[in-house]
């Protein structure tokens, strides 16, 4: 993990999550903006997968358990596509809120991943 990239990811996930949650509670259906924000969160997660694959080989190893890190990252990449898929099937306000919940969950998981990589000692 790269610290600044993790902060960027958490910030984007929190922003995307609050954005979709607020719009959902205001009664908006999923739009290109809310779906796009969730897609951006997913793209950053895929970049994180690549970063995490390479980092240990170039001297940036996690202080905690690499296995636990991958359990989080592997789970996280599944969440935005599931939320987007549901939003495409049922296009109402609550799908927008679900997109928000999904992005906020990603933010929490990224924070935990950062702890495992930088803080936790195995």
């Amino acid at each position, binding site marked *: 993990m790269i610290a600044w990239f993790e902060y960027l990811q958490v910030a984007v996930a929190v922003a995307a999550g609050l954005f979709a949650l607020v719009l*959902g509670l205001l009664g908006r259906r999923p739009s290109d903006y809310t779906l796009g924000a969730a897609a951006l969160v997913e793209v950053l997660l895929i970049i994180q997968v690549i970063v995490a694959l390479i980092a240990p080989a170039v001297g940036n190893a996690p202080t905690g*358990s690499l*296995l*636990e890190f991958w*359990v*989080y990252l*592997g*789970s996280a990449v*599944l*969440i935005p596509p*599931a*939320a987007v898929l*549901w939003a495409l099937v*049922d296009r*109402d306000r*609550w*799908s927008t*809120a*679900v997109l928000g*919940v*999904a992005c906020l*969950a990603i933010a*929490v*998981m990224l924070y935990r991943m950062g702890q495992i990589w930088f803080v936790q000692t195995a």
Partner: protein
Amino acid sequence: MSHTGSSRAVGVGRVLIAVYAVLALAATARSIYQLASKFDQAPVAYLLSGLAGIVYIVATVALLGKGPVWYRIAWITISFELVGVLTVGILSLVDAELFPADTVWSYFGRGYVFIPLVLPVLGMLWLYRRRPGAVAG
């Protein structure tokens, strides 16, 4: 707009189900890791955590499912969760050895911002509102 799906996977219930799905994924994945890597440290807690994860999965499916059978399964699984989080929450305060901090129900789900404590209550309220025979609302 017509809904042909479950009578429970509608409206705000979908947000509830989404939170359930995320919790099911988080608890199950984490307990698989714990059972595989540090089972000896707290076997009871980690086995119970694994069971909790499976019950969250069943609860998620039951909330999505149609008909009275899934409705009953939803009640059973959600009640199990509430009893579990309360029991383990108290036990973890009494005996920290038996229940380390990193299981889903320890300290009333503190590691999951108390979502495991709040969710079953919201789930029960939702099930009651969407009970068979109730006026849709």
